[in-house]
Every structure is written in C-alpha cells, then in structure tokens.
C-alpha cells in the first residue's frame, strides 16, 4: 500500500513506543503483502528492532493461515450444485409472462363474445354485475394478502 492509500483515521492500538504506534497502522498491510516501496522498507527496518511488532506479525500470520485453511475454495456446496434451483427461478418469470398474456387474451375474447351475443340488455347487465362484483372481491382479498405478507415482521421466523 502506498502512503496515499493510507486511511487518515487509521490509528491502531498503541505499542510500546511512539514509533511502534506509527508502524502498527501498516501491520495488516505487511502481513497481506500490500505494503510496497518506501513504506515496506521502513516497516521492515522497524520490525528488526521491535520484538512486540514481530510478535504481532507472527500472530496475524498464524490467524491468516488458519482462516485461509478454512477458505472457500476447499468447500463444496452441500447437496450439489445450485444450478437447478437457479435455472428454475430465472426461467419461471417467462412462464408467468406467457400465462398472463394468454389469460388476458382469453378474457378479452370472452368479453367481446359476451357483448356480441344475442342476449337482451337485462341479461347482459345482470351477468356483468355478478362477474364484476366477483372480480372486485377477489382482487381486494388478493391485495390484502399481498400487503400483509410484505409487512409481516414474522415472515422470516421459522414456526
């Protein structure tokens, strides 16, 4: 890491001397091989004289090594690949789109046929009111269910 990358707020824990305190800001970068150029030289020359920082480096390296060992690339996804689940979920919307388009076209055709039918006006109005009332009630219930699901604070909690 170059000096320009340094976080101005980076002031890690105090050491056994003022110098040590300054150098500890670079300790993690040194362990991660992210320290370069003059910063690296200065840190290395400090490390030669500072047992405390040397100990910190050794501990950090040990922690890093353990975490690396636990690292991801050695882990298999339990239950095999997630592809089939992903595949289902990314193709499902296409199915819904076709279904919705089909239903809308079917309804439009039904309404057109109904209007064009030879029934008298009274029969058409009666049937129309029943159907519209049913659709409005159904939509209202569906809206309430969706809204309560979206605001349910317990939906992530297992029963």
């Amino acid at each position, binding site marked *: *890491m170059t000096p320009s*990358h*340094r*976080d*101005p*707020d*980076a002031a*890690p*824990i105090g050491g056994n001397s003022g110098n040590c305190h300054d150098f*500890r*800001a*670079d*300790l*993690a*970068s040194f362990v*991660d091989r*992210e320290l370069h150029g003059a910063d690296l030289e200065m840190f290395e020359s400090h490390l030669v004289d500072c047992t405390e920082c040397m*100990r910190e480096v*050794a*501990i*950090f390296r*040990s*922690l*890093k090594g*353990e*975490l*690396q*060992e*636990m*690292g*991801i*690339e*050695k*882990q*298999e*996804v*339990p*239950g095999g*690949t*997630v*592809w089939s*689940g*992903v*595949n289902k*979920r*990314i*193709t499902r919307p296409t199915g819904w789109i076709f279904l919705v388009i089909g239903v809308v076209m079917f309804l439009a055709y039904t309404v057109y046929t109904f209007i064009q039918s030879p029934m008298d006006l009274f029969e058409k109005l009666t049937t129309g009111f029943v159907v519209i009332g049913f659709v409005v009630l159904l939509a209202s219930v569906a809206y309430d269910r969706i809204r309560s699901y979206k605001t349910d*604070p317990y939906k*992530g*909690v*297992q029963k």
Partner: protein
Amino acid sequence: MFAEVEKELLRKCRAGDWKAYEPIVRAYEGRLFGTAVGLVHNAEDARDLVQDTFVRAFNSMELYDPDRPFIGWILRVCRNICIDFLRRRKFGHSLEEERDGKPLQIADPGAETDRTLLDKETHSLIREALASLSDEHREVLVLKDMQDLEYGEIAEILNIPQGTVASRVYYARQALRQSLENMGVEYP
C-alpha cells in the same frame, strides 16, 4: 475458466441467454458459498443465499460492467444479500434466544473431511470467534483471508477507500485475536 470464454458467456447472459449462465454458476458457486458461510455461519442458509445471489445477478446483468472482473461484482451482490439476511435474522435470533435462554449453535459446514482432530478443534474455535465479531469485521476477514482478495478488490466490493480496508482488516484481526484469547487460546 478462461477470461475470454467467461466474457463471451457473460455477454450471452446479458442478452438473456440463460443456458450460458450454467457454467458461470458452476464456476463461482463454491467461492460464493464460502463467502456466505463465513458471513452467516449456516450451510443451509448459505446455499439459499448463493442461489438468491445468482438469480439477482442474472436479473440485473445489465448493471455489470464487462470490463471489470465478474468475481468482484458478484461477490458484492452476495455480500449485500448476506447482510440483508443477517439484518432480518437478527430479529428472529433475538426471539429464539429469548425463548430458549441460550445462544444459537453455529453449524460446521465442512464436518466430513480428513482434517485432524486438532485442526477441527482449532477451526471450530476460530469459527466461534469469527461469529462473535461485528458484521463489518467478519466480512473483511472473509473477503481478505478466506477469499484471498486484494485490498483494492475489497474496497470496490464494500465501496470504501483502500486505506479503510487496511485499517479495518487490522482491527478485525485484533478483535478475532481478542475473542480467541477470551476463549482461552494463548499464543507463544
């Protein structure tokens, strides 16, 4: 996966070709799973979150800049999904803890391996210590040490300056060390 092949597959994915997405999913699911396990400490949840990540990434593929590494972008998506999940879960956990009077157990994602007993014990302690860290500290350790990303890549994923990554990694390791010491682990 070769960079050119990956680029071509991602170009097809951007055009909506879901079949081209399969090799991408298979290539990155292990790394994403490791990140998710490191962040949420539960293999089952991590698997679901990886699936969510791939679905969300596919649906927002137009936001991906093909000139940048795909891994950085998808890790950022995964990290955001995990953080959202943790926020939601905190509420559920506090309810469960209240009910049971004890903290939840942390799942071991790699229980059936040929590691020695000593390794298992060490890793179990570290996993426990990792779970005790703040989300902010845990995520930098997962990305840096478990994912082996560079500070620049982590800075891009977390959307913070590179210097902040360095100091956060430092504090995170100090916190991990402190947590291990509190569990009785001593360093020579």
